[in-house]
């Protein structure tokens, strides 16, 4: 024992940082992300303690209030549903290195578009669900796509920084919805529209309680299925189609893409529209599956921003996004009761910071070796 220590003293350990030359093994990036998540939770715990809270109880509370039994698990999934679609929206734009920070606004406009179908009586109130829901989905996607088109066009045509333009349009979207619910569709002076008819709401699990008693009281709605289907389709587009190949190539190496004859201008606009449409679909799903009326606070609740973090944590992989979204759904659901109320937001921020810092470990390896004489 003493001998080995003395050897160590003679040969001090040297830590070097080297770029990784080989491709990382498949298990390595998820492991690093998971490690970053743990580090983030520890850092968050320290900060909560410093702010005078009880970190361990906060985390226990999060776990119990979101995965404790099937009822809260269902609520977690309900919270995760809009995040899935918002994160899918972010992932496809980020894949092309288009920084669409406007999923929030596109989400809100999607919710507005879907609501407009109901509130302007385009369809009669007693229309069947089979007609109502597809039309609302289309309207939501169309409004989201339109909201994505503006920054996409400005970027393609005038090289306008899409980070700022998408972000500014978020604020415009909130003001736009506020105008409609205050001034046009207000219900008795309250800041919300009248409740939607039953035909305009997505079916929920609890409606099948007569056939399967086990699902009584579960609020999980069809939006989850919409999200999963969208994720699978997006995965196929990104990894199995020619268009997806173009998107990935532009993202990785725009110059090579240009030489290969790929039209970057056109792809910028199309991808922004696709991204906006996905976020708009998220807004539709939230309004039709949960809120059942147009109201600002529950739809402008930051799902679009959480989507950014989720997309990044999932390494932009549409299928991984589903699972990461459930994790964040839990955080948001449980976070409502945690004091101080800013904690979930802060933890999201810390997670993102740790994740980005951890990317370093994917590009470099830390070599610990004995100093040679």
């Amino acid at each position, binding site marked *: 024992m003493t001998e080995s220590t003395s050897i160590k003293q003679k040969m001090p350990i040297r830590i070097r940082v080297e770029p990784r030359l080989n491709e990382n093994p498949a298990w390595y990036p998820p492991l690093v992300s998971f490690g970053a998540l743990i580090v983030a939770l520890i850092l968050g715990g320290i900060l909560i303690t410093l702010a005078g809270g009880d970190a361990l109880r906060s985390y226990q509370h999060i776990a119990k209030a979101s995965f404790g039994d099937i009822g809260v698990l269902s609520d977690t999934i309900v919270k995760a549903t809009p995040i899935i679609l918002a994160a899918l929206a972010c992932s496809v734009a980020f894949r092309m290195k288009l920084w669409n920070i406007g999923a929030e606004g596109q989400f809100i406009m999607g919710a507005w578009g879907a609501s407009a179908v109901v509130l302007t009586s385009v369809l009669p109130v007693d229309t069947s669900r089979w007609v109502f829901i597809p039309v609302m989905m289309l309207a939501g996607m169309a409004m989201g796509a339109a909201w994505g088109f503006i920054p996409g066009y400005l970027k393609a045509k*005038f090289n*306008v*920084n899409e*980070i700022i333009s998408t972000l500014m*349009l978020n604020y415009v979207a909130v003001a736009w919805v506020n105008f409609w619910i205050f*001034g046009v569709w207000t219900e008795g002076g309250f800041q919300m529209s009248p409740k939607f008819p039953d035909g305009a709401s997505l079916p929920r699990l609890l409606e099948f309680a007569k056939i399967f008693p086990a699902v009584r009281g579960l609020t999980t709605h069809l939006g989850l299925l919409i999200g999963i289907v969208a994720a699978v389709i997006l995965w196929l587009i990104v990894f199995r189609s020619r268009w997806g190949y173009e998107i990935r190539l532009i993202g990785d190496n725009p110059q090579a893409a240009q030489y290969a004859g790929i039209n970057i201008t056109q792809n910028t606009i199309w991808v922004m529209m696709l991204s906006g449409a996905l976020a708009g679909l998220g807004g539709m799903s939230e309004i039709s599956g949960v809120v059942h009326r147009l109201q600002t606070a529950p739809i402008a609740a930051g799902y679009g921003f959480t989507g950014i973090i989720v997309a990044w944590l999932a390494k932009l992989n549409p299928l991984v996004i589903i699972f990461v979204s459930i994790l964040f759904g839990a955080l948001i659901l449980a976070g409502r009761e945690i004091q101080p109320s800013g904690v979930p937001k*802060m933890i999201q*921020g810390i997670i993102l910071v740790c994740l980005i810092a951890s990317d370093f470990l994917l590009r470099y390896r830390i070599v610990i070796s004995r100093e040679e004489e």
Partner: protein
Amino acid sequence: MDFTIILQAGIASGTVLLFATLGELFSERAGVLNLGVEGMMLIGAMTAFSTTIATGNPWIGVLAAMLFAGLISQIHAFIVITLQADQVVSGLSLTFLGTGISLVLGEGLSKAGTVSLLPNFSIPLLTLIPIIGKIFFTDQSILVYIGYLLVPLSWYYINHTRPGLHLRAIGEYPSAADALGISVFRQRYFYVFVGGMLAGLAGATISLAVSPGWFSELTTGGQGWIAIGLVIFAQWDPIRAAVGAYAFGALRRLILDIQGPVLLLGFANPFYYNPYLGFFLQMLPYLFTVVVLVIGSREAMRKRIGAPAALGNPYVRGERGK
């Protein structure tokens, strides 16, 4: 409606944007894009307000705000300069982090009541200049006057001093700067810190002077993002940044004040009779930011000037620089 009063208040409100824009300008000139301005401003506003309540001295509040926001900015600096991560994502995460931390630490602060604010005063003689004296030099916060001084100083520093030359070099051609013995890494850390301090000062300007108090995220209401847009409009020039910041400040005031009077330019004021139209007024600063970006980008394309060449790229020693 007295337009000189609106402009007078607009200058004060524009000072917030001015500090934030100048801070981002220094950081970007050094080659580091920092999208965390909004978060750092919130940290600054919260720190300034709470420290002033605790100590009773607004100057300690301002100092604490600048230091805390500067400290937070170093997280971004570490991630993008040392760890060479993507500047866009890291800056975004800084905004999330700053917002979260300021909400947690600012819990209950909105009910804390009033604090002693920074002094307002007029400048003798200069107030006598017609119109201009009233707008710029009458009953303004001391921070507004600090803003006036900061603009020419920043311009002179960047364009006519040796450290300013180094600053431009590390943003345009870091490998050449490195070859000349300028420490690119250390200098970039420093200018990100400067940017953070100025963003903190911008936040303190809100919570201690322009609209005193702490209103959680609504305290800044996206002004950090407008500041980043203004840097592009300003084409990285402090003088143009000042013009943009004050114009936006005036616009913000105009939107607040235009809904008051019954008559507008002799006509019935539509914003008075239909207050819901006010939501369209609220959109204006954000829409204007987009318009300003279009103008800035087109001009940059035409004149072939643009962002500092190394903006957004990490500097790696020994790699072929661009």
